[in-house]
C-alpha cells in the first residue's frame, strides 16, 4: 500500500466477519495527520469492530489498513505503542490517585522517570488538579475524570488518539471544555479519531464518516455533507442515512 507521510490512517476494503455476519463490510478511507476525524454510525453499524481493528486488537478478515504507517495484521504491537485510547466506559483506575493513574499509564508506554515527572507537573497545572493530585480518581466529578482520562491517553505523545464516545453524559459546559482540549491536541499534531452520539459535535470535526450496516455510506466535511444530503444540520444528515439501516442496534 502506498502510505505517504501525511497519512495517519489508511484503510482499503477493510472487512471483518463473525461467522456469516459481516460486521465491517469493505470500508475504505484515509485520515490525514493532525485531522479531527468523526466516525459516526447508528448502534450496531460496526463502529466498535472497525475501531478494534485499527487499534490492533482484532485481526481483519480481509482488506488492508495501516495505522501510523504500521500494518494492522503484522505490526499490531507497533500500532499499540503509537496510539492513545480513551472510552467513556473505561479509562482510569478509580482506586488509584490522579498521580498514580498518570504514573501507571506512562510507565506502560515505557516513558522515563524524568519525562513522567516533568510532564506530570505540567499536566496537573494545566488541568488545575494540583490540589487533587493525591486524591482517588473516584472522588472526582465525571467531567474532571473525562478531561484527565484524555490527558492520560495522550500523555505518551502518540501519533493518533482514538476516542470512543468520550463525552457521553457529560454536562454541556464540560463537553465544550473537552472539545477545546481535542482542538489543542490536533493543533500539536496529534490525529484525533472520535465517535459520538452528539450531532453538534460532528460539526467540530474536520471530516466525518457515517457507517450504516457495516459500510461507510458517506464521508466528507460537515458543510459538504449537509449540501449533498440537502440537510440543515448534521442531525438531519445522520437521520437520512441511518433510517436506511436494515440491521437493528447492538
Amino acid at each position, binding site marked *: 500500500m502506498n502510505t505517504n507521510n501525511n497519512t495517519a490512517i489508511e484503510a482499503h476494503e477493510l472487512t471483518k466477519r463473525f461467522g456469516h455476519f459481516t460486521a465491517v463490510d469493505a470500508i475504505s478511507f484515509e485520515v490525514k495527520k493532525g485531522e479531527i476525524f468523526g466516525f459516526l454510525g447508528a*448502534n450496531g453499524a460496526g463502529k466498535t469492530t472497525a475501531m478494534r481493528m485499527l487499534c490492533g486488537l482484532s485481526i481483519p478478515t480481509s482488506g488492508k489498513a495501516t495505522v501510523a504507517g504500521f500494518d494492522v495484521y503484522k505490526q499490531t504491537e507497533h500500532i499499540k505503542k503509537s496510539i492513545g485510547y480513551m472510552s467513556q466506559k473505561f479509562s482510569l483506575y478509580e482506586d488509584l490517585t490522579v498521580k498514580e493513574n498518570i504514573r501507571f499509564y506512562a510507565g506502560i508506554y515505557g516513558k522515563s522517570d524524568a519525562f513522567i515527572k516533568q510532564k506530570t507537573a505540567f499536566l496537573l497545572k494545566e488541568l488545575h488538579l494540583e490540589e487533587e493530585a493525591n486524591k482517588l480518581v473516584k472522588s472526582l466529578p465525571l467531567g474532571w475524570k473525562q478531561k484527565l482520562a484524555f490527558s492520560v491517553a495522550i500523555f505518551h505523545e502518540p501519533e493518533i488518539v482514538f476516542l470512543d464516545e468520550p463525552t457521553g453524559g457529560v*454536562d454541556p459546559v464540560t463537553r465544550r471544555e473537552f472539545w477545546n482540549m481535542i482542538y489543542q491536541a490536533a493543533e500539536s499534531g496529534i490525529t484525533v479519531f472520535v465517535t459520538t452520539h452528539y450531532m453538534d459535535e460532528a460539526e467540530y470535526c474536520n471530516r466525518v464518516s457515517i457507517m450504516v450496516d457495516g459500510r461507510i455510506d458517506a464521508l466528507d466535511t460537515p458543510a459538504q455533507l449537509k449540501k449533498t444530503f440537502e440537510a440543515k444540520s448534521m442531525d438531519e444528515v445522520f437521520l437520512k442515512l441511518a433510517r436506511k439501516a436494515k440491521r437493528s442496534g447492538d
Partner: protein
Amino acid sequence: MPSVIANNLAKQYGKKKDIVQALKGVSFEVEKGELFGIIGPDGAGKTSLFRILTTLLIPDGGSASVDGFDVVKDFKAIRQRVGYMPGRFSLYQDLTIEENLEFFATIFNTTIEANYDLIKDIYSQIEPFKDRRAGKLSGGMKQKLALSCALIHKPSVLFLDEPTTGVDAVSRKEFWEMLRSLKQQGITILVSTPYMDEASLCDRVALIQGGEILSVNTPGGVIASFQHPLLAVKGDNMLRLLTDLKNFEGTIDAYPFGEYHHVVLKDGYSEASVTNYLQQHNYHQPHVQTIRADIEDCFIALMKTEVDSPFTIHQ
C-alpha cells in the same frame, strides 16, 4: 392532587471525608398525566432521585409522595402502582421475551392478556421473537421489552431512568414517539435524560445539576426566561473567532455550538455591534445572526449563574 411530590429531598453517600451530596434539597411536583423530564448530566442526582421515588432508597432529608402515598411509610402501596425502568438493563437474561413478561405480570397478580392493550404498540414489535432469550436481544429490542415489563401491571406512574443514553439518534426518536402514545393513555411519566434536545419533547422539565434543581418550567418557559440577546456567529477561522468573541466588551459568554459559536450579549449590545467589532478585527463578511436560545443555551447559562447570570430565576 399532584401525582408526584418531592419536598426538599436530600441524599448523601459515603462517610467522613468522602461524603458525596447526591441531592441537596430537591423540590418539584408532577401533575397527573404529565410527561415530565428530569434533564441533567451524569452525576446530577437523577438516579438517586428516581430510586427514592420508587421506594428503593430512603432519603436522608425531606419527603416525597407518589399518588398520595409516602415513599417511606407506604412503600408497599407505591410499589403496586408504579412502573420502573432502571438505566441498566435488568431483566432476566436467560428467560425468553415472553417468560420475562409473564414473570412480571404474575408478580403483580395479573396476566399479559389483561393489560395487552396498553403494551400492544410496543410489544407487537418484538412479539415475533418471543421465544428468544433476553440476553440475545439487540439494544433496541431490550429497551422495548423492558418498557413492556414496566407497563404490564398498568402502573399509574412510570419512571424511566435514562432510557435513551448511549442510544443513536434514530432509536431515540422512536423511543420518544412511544412515550407520547403512552401519555395519551393517561399514564404519568417521569423520564430522565442527559440529552438537552429531548427537553422540548416533555410537557415540563426540571433541569438538574450537582444535586440541585436549576429550573422547573415548560420547555417554552425555560427558553422565555433567557433574557439577554443571543447570537449565532460563523467566520473563517472558528478557533480564533471564539477567542475574539470572548474578548468583545459586550460579551457575557461565548461557546461553540455545532457549526456556529453562540454569543450571549450584555443588554445594549446587538448584532450590529458584533458585526462592527469583527470587521474591525479583519473578518470578511462574518455571519452574525440573532437567534432564540434553546434548552442547552439555558442550561449553560444556569450552570454559570454564580459568575454572571444572563438569567432571571422565576420561582
